[in-house]
């Protein structure tokens, strides 16, 4: 499988990374080189093989559904580029 210029732009939009027109060709070549490299997996018959879900034989632990943390909103927003009253500020999203 290989990607064309339109697909590169579409992936950029999905990934929320602005791809300038002049960059499309470069990304297209690089992505196709990588996709070409991973293509060799098609040689392997994986019929009946379970996909790995955990690298160690363990179940994810669960904890009681109770509040164990919190009440430090100031610390949460401390590194944010723009805040007001412990809220993250973003451009208007609802007209």
């Amino acid at each position: 499988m290989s990607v064309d210029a339109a697909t590169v732009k579409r992936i950029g939009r999905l990934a929320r990374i602005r791809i300038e027109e002049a960059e499309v060709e470069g990304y297209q070549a690089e992505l196709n080189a990588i996709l070409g490299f991973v293509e060799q997996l098609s040689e392997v018959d994986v019929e009946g093989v379970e996909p790995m879900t955990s690298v160690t034989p363990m179940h994810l632990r669960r904890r009681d559904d109770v509040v164990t943390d919190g009440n430090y909103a100031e610390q949460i927003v401390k590194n944010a580029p723009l805040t007001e009253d412990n809220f993250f500020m973003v451009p208007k999203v609802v007209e």
Partner: protein
Amino acid sequence: MTELTKLSLADARKGLKDKSFTALELTDAYLGAIDAGNDKINAYVATTPEQARDMAKASDAKLSKGEAGLLEGIPLGVKDLFATKGVHTQAASHILDGFKPEYESTVTANLWRDGAVMLGKLNMDEFAMGSSNETSYYGSVVNPYRAEGSNANLVPGGSSGGSAAAVAAWMCAGATATDTGGSIRQPAAFTGTVGIKPTYGRCSRWGTVAFASSLDQAGPIARTVEDAALMLQSMSGFDPKDSTSVDLAVPDFAAAVERGVKGLTIGVPREYRMDGMPAEIEALWNQGLEWLKAEGATVKDISLPHTKYALPAYYIVAPAEASSNLARYDGVKYGLRVSGKDITDMYELTRAAGFGREVKRRIMIGTYVLSAGYFDAYYVKAQKLRTLIKKDFEDAFNAGVDTILTPATPSAAFAIGDEALASDPVAMYLNDVFTVTVNMAGLPGIAVPAGRDGKGLPLGLQLIGKPFDEETLFAAARVIEKSTGTRFAPTRWW
């Protein structure tokens, strides 16, 4: 007095206990070494001298009261991937511009609990994506080793290039590092240092900037096998804050170092004998086997048939998980923000400006393989390959193999700005061909310096172990370390 920074971590512990010098003197010696050499090596992206001296003074107080912790007064460097409270933590990326976390990673908290002293934060490939430390926003790290008769700067490997270079150049007694596809073992091999990636789950991932969550593991880079064992001892342990942390007792790793290899069976996987392997790598590998045999080990040829598929499967799994993990960098919660005409514009401009080219490339690949219609063909297929790769190792261990010996890297350190590698992403990825299988199967792996190439550059061997059997790796690596009959050290030029 011998130069304090040249002591191994273990010898520095003894000197502190014997009161031959104080923790403050040791810390000042390292801070001096950083001041004198960091503009050439570029290993540190931030130093914390005041904090280091305060921690050293606290250690001296504890030492005088006989209350020393495992690493009391030992000055360490910390890879920029670990959250350190109030201190530069940017994964060597521009997108985390100015980020100073309000919390401490579990691994570093464990080290400070045991008395270690923080010297500063170490350079790395951006978000741990790279094998040469050239993708850092803070510029390349320079390998303390140079080829004989050459002044050309070489890469220290990556992604933990700052960690490896700082340890080799005596700018810290040991360093934290992380390994997703080889990022501890490859730079250790390039710098004549020892690096271990423990079993997945041994070290908590909490507070470590995530790259590929099912592959990432923390571990140490140090100057000797014993030093690495001491550091891993402190870094390991169960952490309820990481759901993949394993609730297992941490063995006394340092006690295993001198255990020897008598009676052990060493596996030699035929698939690692790649076409075009340099003769000196092959000779190094055979030499390592001879050393282990001389100490009473048995060598057994084995087959790991899916080896060649590990790297392509990795380049699906790792970017897929990265694209998901790195979605959080959006200009809202922390770091860089570039304003746009609306919120989507802001996201796109922030991420375009904040991420470097390699990181963007991997996010794009990850986004593509996870996108509608491609998930089964790529991600699920790669996870099936992982099952097969893991089974290859299980079959070998079930057939009586205790540990597997392989080369650590296909070559010694290469030049900064290598044109052929820069123009072909896949060629750079091949650096991890011997190490990446270990991450895919969640196993422990150690790189230990074993020889030098024709130009005098260090070469490493890798030992791969059974899950949670790091002890055998330390024991076997120690046999190789002793057998070389030399202590690896660069000739100082910086």
